């Protein structure tokens, strides 16, 4: 027991600070991806409600692809494919050297695309809950398109979308563990390193699981605060 605590401690020979650094990497990756994925998701949702059938088809193809592909495959395609693409472009411009794409960036792009596909469904559902009369009333008050979205539609939209978005966020948080396979040192990668050095897989993988649980529990608190805030103007019934 003493052993386990010293393994996880923050002092010399302990892996505590390494795991904390990994947690920071996981969190910063997820937090960077979140706005990218959610904004892209809203854009896809608006495309899915467009009048033009071609625009709608683009949205359908996008969501079908990125909801259907395994996240690991998406990540590897973005990582290796992006590398090959950039190398081709650079070669055509007369640069012959090899280029490494940043693993963090590849993660943000890949997880952002997946999050966009899943969150667009949530946005579509939320947009459907807003009655037509709300838009009409806003335009009757003389609000322009942007103002009526910001002041009338958006606050109601968030109320309907938050539960779904919180699910998306939790999935994203867990999916980021896949980034360890392209050697970004997040919780999972740090844990693998610790296991390699100490030969204590039981301790460290359990710790990793609990770190993720802690992150989910923490985000649960944040989301329940946000939901209370989004509901503050809403009377039941």
């Amino acid at each position, binding site marked *: 027991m003493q052993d386990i605590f010293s393994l996880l401690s923050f002092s010399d020979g302990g892996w505590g600070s390494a795991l904390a650094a990994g947690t920071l990497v996981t969190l910063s990756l997820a937090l960077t991806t979140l706005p990218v994925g959610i904004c892209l998701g809203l854009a896809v949702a608006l495309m899915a409600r467009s009048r033009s059938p071609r625009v709608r088809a683009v949205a359908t193809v996008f969501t079908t692809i990125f909801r259907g*592909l*395994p996240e*690991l495959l998406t990540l590897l395609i973005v990582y*290796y494919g992006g590398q090959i693409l950039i190398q081709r472009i650079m070669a055509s411009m007369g640069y012959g050297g090899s280029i490494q794409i940043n693993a963090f960036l590849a993660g943000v792009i890949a997880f952002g695309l997946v999050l966009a596909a899943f969150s667009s469904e949530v946005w579509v559902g939320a947009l459907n809950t807003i009655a037509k009369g709300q838009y009409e009333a806003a335009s009757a008050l003389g609000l322009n398109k942007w103002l009526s979205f910001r002041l009338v539609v958006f606050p109601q939209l968030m109320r309907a979308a938050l539960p779904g978005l919180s699910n998306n966020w*939790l999935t994203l948080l867990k999916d980021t563990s896949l980034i360890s396979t392209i050697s970004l040192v997040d919780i*999972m990668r740090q844990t693998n390193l610790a296991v390699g050095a100490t030969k204590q897989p039981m301790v460290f993988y359990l710790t990793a*699981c*609990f770190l993720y*649980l802690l992150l989910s529990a923490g985000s649960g608190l944040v989301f329940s605060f946000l939901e209370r805030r989004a509901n503050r103007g809403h009377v039941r019934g």
Partner: protein
Amino acid sequence: MFRDLLGLVLDLDLLDRYGWRFLDGVVVTAQLVAISFTLGGILGLGLGLARLSNNRALRWFAGAYIYFFRGSPLLAQLFLLYYGLGSLRPFWTDLGLWWFFREAWYCALLAFTLNTAAYQAEIFRGGIQAVPRGQREAAAALGMHDAITFVKVILPQAMIVALRPLGNELILMVKASAIASLVTIYDLMGVTKLAFSRSYNFELYLWAAVLYLLIVECIRRLWVLLERRLTRHLKSGDLVRPAHTGWLSRMTKSVLKPNT
């Protein structure tokens, strides 16, 4: 002729070298998902019932199990089982279970089963709770035994509610099964990585993408058919509800809720 057409979209040389391996990969992925989804369903139904039971300890255990497996990444769970439990060799040898934890295949099956059981437990719980209380009361009034009531009355109706989320979970499992490639299993993803490491041809990843999309699309279509077949007794896919409310219930409703 067919090969010439195929040659327009694929690298034929690559197809000759890795085509059959990819098919093997698809079979391995299908086996992995089918076995763990089925076993996970059985375990999940048990856990869902435990979550609804009157026994507080049972409820607490099921809740903790579901929270753990839904809150941490499948990757971490798989490594925990394969490397973590695999490191306790003397213990498993004593129990005579070492053959199980030695094999990546069994560990992956176990990890996926335990993981999907947690998700399916929540689906079943939701389905069972969605069955109106009157159904249970009516069965009790007919003198039906609790177990019979569950199997003949509650479960069929709960399954209809659970059908769509179960289909989603199956699709999520197909996608999640790609993680098995990280513990030396040659599923579709594993085969792709192996072939890529030998040929450095990026086209292989696109093959894998198309194959995964095909699998997911097939499951989706199949599920739509299944749902249509299983809900054919319901009007336009609606859930069970009385065909027309009687005058008595309509009157009580209007008396109790004068505002509406």
